[in-house]
């Protein structure tokens, strides 16, 4: 009997158009939009392109060519040089084909036609090169035996301050939108949970009344519905995470299995929330759907789906709220995988999700346990 109910619950849910639209198609469209809108914003703001440079008189300083060639072999080289005579180099500079013209030799100089970050970088680069080359030459002239020691010292970082990144994870803020997108899909699970509550109560739907007339216990049919919805929601979450990971190329590092787990648990929380809302009172179905959708979107808004910094603001002002907001819990749990080396925070968030789901399901079952109705 239970498996029969579960089988048809899965079948009807997977064929429900609104479920396919809201839980599969809409997130794919929104995720693609995020990718198009924000995908390369971080790169544009934080990363510098290779600087195209013309070098004149390289024959005067063969060591400089060696240095340039080493730089060019790096993954993201600082500059790309062309070795030209002065006339062609200046022509390219005038045409904007190169950012600057470096005159190699003892009196190294730089000619630029504009001011900006790239020009400043070139200036700092030739200053550092000139300084270090001068020291090496002076060492060779005065005491060649100390050349190795001097070179080693020059290679070392002279600064007493050492930059240590806060995280080894992806610091691209765009990725936060993807976490919130996953949270949003999890919250939309509330619609399927809502239908379970409505579809099993005689005073809320003809289908519920019809089921209540059958010899199948209400608890069994409700439980089959809830588990069916959890499974369907889990499939939707897997599709959503897979789409962001493999199609939109969101970098989850080595944490993808944990992301799946958090997303599925988030989906279960969403379904449970919907079941609870569906169990309250005798409002029209459309009203309950509206409450679920509004509640879901509010949770997503407060977790940063529309305004990236709102979650941080809430964390400062009402720190407890982020542990009660299911959407924030989903986004935070995935975010913690990226930002923290350990999994303590991740599992704490998962525990909160389990707790909230248990509360919603228990309250929902209590509210729907009534066996006879005063009015139909």
């Amino acid at each position: 009997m239970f498996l029969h109910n579960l089988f048809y619950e899965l079948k009807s849910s997977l064929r429900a158009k609104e479920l396919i639209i809201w839980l599969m198609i809409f997130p794919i469209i929104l995720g693609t939009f995020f990718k198009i809108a924000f995908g390369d914003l971080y790169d544009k703001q934080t990363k510098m392109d290779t600087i195209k440079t013309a070098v004149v008189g390289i024959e005067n300083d063969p060591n400089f060519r060696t240095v340039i060639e080493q730089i060019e072999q790096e993954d993201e080289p600082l500059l790309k040089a062309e070795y030209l005579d002065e006339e062609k180099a200046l022509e390219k500079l005038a045409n904007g084909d190169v950012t600057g013209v470096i005159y190699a030799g003892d009196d190294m100089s730089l000619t630029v036609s504009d001011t900006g970050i790239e020009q400043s970088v070139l200036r700092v680069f030739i200053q550092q090169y000139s300084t270090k080359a001068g020291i090496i030459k002076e060492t060779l002239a005065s005491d060649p035996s100390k050349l190795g020691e001097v070179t080693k010292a020059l290679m070392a970082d002279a600064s007493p301050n050492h930059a240590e990144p806060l995280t080894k994870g992806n610091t691209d803020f765009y990725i936060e939108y993807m976490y919130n997108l996953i949270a949003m899909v999890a919250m939309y699970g509330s619609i399927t949970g809502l239908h379970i509550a409505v579809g099993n109560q005689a005073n809320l739907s003809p289908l519920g009344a019809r089921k209540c007339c059958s010899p199948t216990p209400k608890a069994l049919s409700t439980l089959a519905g809830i588990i069916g919805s959890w499974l369907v929601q889990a499939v939707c979450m897997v599709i959503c995470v897979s789409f962001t990971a493999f199609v939109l190329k969101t970098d989850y590092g080595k944490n993808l299995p944990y992301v799946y787990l958090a997303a599925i648990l988030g989906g279960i929380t969403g379904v449970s929330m919907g079941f609870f809302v569906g169990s309250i009172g005798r409002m029209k179905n459309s009203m309950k759907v509206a409450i679920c959708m509004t509640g879901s979107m509010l949770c997503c808004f407060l977790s940063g789906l529309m305004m990236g910094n709102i979650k941080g603001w809430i964390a400062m002002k009402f720190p407890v709220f982020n542990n009660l907001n299911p959407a924030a819990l989903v986004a935070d749990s995935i975010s913690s995988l990226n930002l923290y080396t350990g999994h303590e925070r991740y599992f704490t968030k998962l525990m909160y999700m389990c707790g909230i789901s248990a509360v919603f399901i228990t309250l929902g079952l209590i509210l729907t346990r009534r066996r006879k109705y005063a009015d139909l």
Partner: protein
Amino acid sequence: MANSVVKIDNIVKRYGELLALDHFSLDIKEGEVFGLLGPNGSGKTTTINCLLSLLAYDKGDIEIFGKKMTPVSYDIKKKIGIIMQNVAVFDELTVYENIDYFCGLYINDKKLRKQYVEDAINFVGLGDFRKFYPKKLSGGLLRRLNIACGIAHKPKLIILDEPTVAVDPQSRNKILEGIESLNRDGATIIYTSHYMEEVEQLCTRIAIMDKGKKIAEGSKDELKRMIKNTETVTVEVLGLTQSMLDELSALPHVYDVKYDGQKAVISCSGGKHNLIRILDTLQKKEVSFGRVYSELPTLNDVFLEITGKALRDKED
């Protein structure tokens, strides 16, 4: 004497101030087709919902198959088939799947269930539509699907709550024939409707309800015998004088004459050859008349005479 299948004893159901069922009692015997007839809002569906233990009631007792009916009387529920007024099917499941789903709530054995589902599909004539989704079905076919979902598990007691509302004549006939067939196969039927023709055609015993009360009960002949009217003669005739109307009123067994200038409606109580006597009187006075027809009393006449109002509106 046949066993009682349903026994409703003195049920009282209130919706706030409104008394929906007022000390209502019924005793339905095995093998009967029992009709609950009454206008909209008379308490038919409330009776059914109380009977099924969906609705809480304020007073009284309900027994089905000799046992007290409660929401957890699963052994009783197994024997009941319910066809509700509102179609209750899954939009996302096909005709076959819907019937299989509801049948599966009663029958665990897959093989047996498959046979039962096929029987139900053939019974309601939806063989060509088994892979259709409900939204693709007409109103009549949808009602038939609703019935198939309710009777697929071969119940001993079948409750049909206004199953022919908004159904085309072809589907209505199919449904009524099906109900008669189910009864021939041994099922006890409870049929609620405000269509008196259906109730007259189908039911072996009828209870007429109004304002939550049972106002009459019996076979259709017993009910008709309860009232004064036994025959109504209608004559299309122009220009009847008051003296002529008085003469008609004075005929034996005639107790009421109404005339609107175009037709005379003459109500008779008992007696034989009323029609012949009326026509003889008109011919003797050389009154020419058009169409003449004689009607035996209907359940509507019964309802009209008992309550002073028509059973249903003319537009119905």
